């Protein structure tokens, strides 16, 4: 029964992810006065790419086709572990905070290796920038969620969420707000959004995420796109559920699951639209300012931990 619920959660996440990306792009296009390609375009792109044969650069090794699979698997596992729809968890994989972060890190490292695989300067440049950002992001994620776990006494995400559902006042506590702001910043950095990376650029020299996947094509590129977008769903889903825990299914009933699915879709799409709307007014910070931004978010996360001990 739990396995069924987790399978449903993965299915919903995979179905919702292209829509999320489509909505974000469409919102940005409309706010900028463009027509936009439509909400369904990311889904059509992935379908097209998955039907195409990948072409690898001369000298590229087996990682070119292995990394997309590793990335998609790591993203699917994190989507399964993060309590997006319900707080039911599998007995044999803990939905522990550290497990989720580690699983995401597997995908991060795989992407960095992919950037190096084809031996081009752009890929290596993208990988080095990606690892710099990842090294600054991961501690903040850990510290921020740790701050949220202190009142609960466990690092299991489902337990943290359950505690917030049962006592909604904790959501607007200083600890929670600091941690959520810190988390939001690192989610933007980790998923390659403005002001850290510009997903819409064609300028190779400025790219981070796009530079690593520049040499991939066809099926491989399709999986890479889907895998990267799933990370956005997992991380953004975690943040919206921590911020607004309402609607998350407390049991495995069909009714609760339907409500949870609807509630999660609405929350995620609204959060995505808000990010897209904010991006219209943002510019990309200079690469060497990225550490300052992420250090700021780390400070917030650290304050949040401090507060969680002082303000019990």
């Amino acid at each position, binding site marked *: 029964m739990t396995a069924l619920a987790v399978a449903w959660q993965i299915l919903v996440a995979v179905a919702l992810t292209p829509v999320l990306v489509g909505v974000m792009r469409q919102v940005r296009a409309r706010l900028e*006065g463009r027509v936009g390609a439509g909400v369904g375009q990311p889904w059509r792109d992935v379908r097209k790419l998955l039907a195409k044969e990948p072409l690898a650069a001369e000298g590229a090794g087996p990682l070119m086709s292995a990394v997309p699979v590793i990335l998609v698997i790591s993203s699917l596992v994190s989507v399964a572990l993060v309590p997006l729809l319900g707080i039911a968890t599998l007995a044999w994989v803990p939905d522990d905070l550290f497990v989720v972060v580690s699983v995401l890190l597997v995908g991060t490292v795989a992407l960095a290796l992919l950037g190096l695989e084809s031996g081009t300067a752009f890929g290596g440049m993208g990988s080095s920038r990606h690892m710099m950002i990842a090294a600054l992001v991961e501690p903040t994620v850990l510290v921020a969620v740790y701050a949220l776990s202190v009142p609960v006494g466990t690092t299991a995400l489902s337990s943290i969420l359950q505690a917030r559902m049962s006592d909604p006042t904790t959501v607007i506590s200083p600890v929670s707000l600091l941690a959520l702001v810190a988390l939001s910043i690192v989610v933007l950095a980790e998923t390659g959004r403005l002001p850290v990376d510009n997903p819409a650029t064609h*300028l190779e020299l400025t790219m981070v995420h796009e530079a690593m996947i520049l040499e991939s094509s066809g099926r491989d590129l399709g999986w890479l796109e889907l895998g990267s977008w799933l990370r956005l769903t997992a991380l953004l889903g975690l943040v919206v559920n921590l911020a607004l825990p309402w609607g998350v299914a407390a049991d495995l009933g069909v009714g609760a699951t339907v409500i949870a699915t609807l509630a999660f879709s609405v929350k995620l799409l609204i959060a995505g639209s808000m990010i897209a709307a904010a991006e219209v007014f943002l*510019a990309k910070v200079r690469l060497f300012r990225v550490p300052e931004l992420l250090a700021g978010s780390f400070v917030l996360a650290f304050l949040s931990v401090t507060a969680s001990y002082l303000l019990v």
Partner: protein
Amino acid sequence: MSGERAAYREDVVPGALGGKVQALLGSGWRLALVAGHDDGDGFRVVYSFLRPVGQRRELVVRLPHDQPELPSLAGLSYPAGRFERELRDLFGIEPVGHPLPRGLVRHGHWPTTWHPMLRDAGPMPDFEPDVGSYPFVHVQGDGVYEIPVGPIHAGIIEPGHFRFSVVGETILRMKARLWFVHRGMERLFEGRLPSEAIELAERISGDTAVGHTVAFVQAVEEALGIPIDPEVAARRALLLELERLYNHVADLGMIPNDVGFGIAHIHTQRLREKLLRHNAAVTGHRLLRGGITVGDTRFVREPDLALVAGVAAEMAEIVAFTLNHSVVTDRFTGTAVLRADLGGSLGVLGYVARASGIGVDARRDHPSVDLGPDFSVVTQEGGDVLSRYAVRAGEVAVSAGILPHLAELASGGAGGERAAYPVTDGTTGGPAAGLGVVEAWRGTLCHWVELAPDGRLTRVKIVDPSFFNWPGLPVALADTIVPDFPLANKSFNQSYAGNDL
């Protein structure tokens, strides 16, 4: 006309060239153009110098055909050294004493003995393998690596190869290899009547159609002694300002777009489209082709001054909200600084020069028409991306401000009753030459034209401001980081087509 010209044109023996040029450069003259000529019985090299206001000097050096050697002026003037490398590639004239006598404009796959501007050069030979290879300096040291970019890019841009030597993210050295698309433009002019060559001049560099065409017809008119009415000069000046406006408006959006501030780009694209449609109404072509002819310039419809003023006002608003954005200003400030002393010795022109505090502007220095009391030369001192952005923003305002005055001058004349320029022959009575100097939107642009007695073109030498400005880009990149290169490059926005003829 010819007697007047003799006053500033002077034949010089090769040995005396260095001293003459040194004296000129020392007294405020600028080397604007060097044109080579294969006269069949020998080579002729024309050095053209300009000095504000409106002063010209030309030095002519004749060289034998069998041993064409020219004393190099590279030690006196950096642009002279580049012109000499161009002469060496196109004519096989050897600059003696040049510190870096290697190929500049020649395509990497041409046979090294083929010089396309020689009379007997014939059609372009088959490409050879790139045997000489390009002498990129290999920077060595701990952690130094190279990033090759292009010549094929991810966007729709012209071909150029950029080789970065980088430590971490800091650029140690950047070398731009251009010259991938030699079209033989100057050769295409030869043998045409000037009226048949207008269409070529309009296509030298698509975004500078007016600049090149006005320079070309000015040169032809000087050679043929055709007087120009003040209304015609005003109409040309007006078209030049319209060209400046639509290009600057586009740049003012594309520069912030390169730091991810897309909203400015979207709005300037809207304004640019408005101006292009206005262009189409004024001359019948979105890029302002078709209005300018030898001896005349006409509009299909009078310019809509209210529309242009509205665009300039909206542009001012977009510039204000772009520069009020702290992240955008942070990215622009101090990025890719071209110091005034370095820019000056490279001989940079146009907004690149004016952003480094070098106030060179042919509209003031070599005027063809009075631009009115609202005209001023916009300069900035910073030399960085912010300054180049601010100069463009200021020039949009100035251009829009002087348009009403120009429109008044342009509509003052009798209009349609001018006799058309005779397109057949016999107008010169002997070989004739002329120089056209124009402040195009990128900077001062020169055409040197020579006509045979039958009125056909025997030589057209084109110097786009990009020829002077491209070397400024690598110099400005010192201490810039790799991800800021596209921003720096866009703030220079040099022409590939105008540079590589």
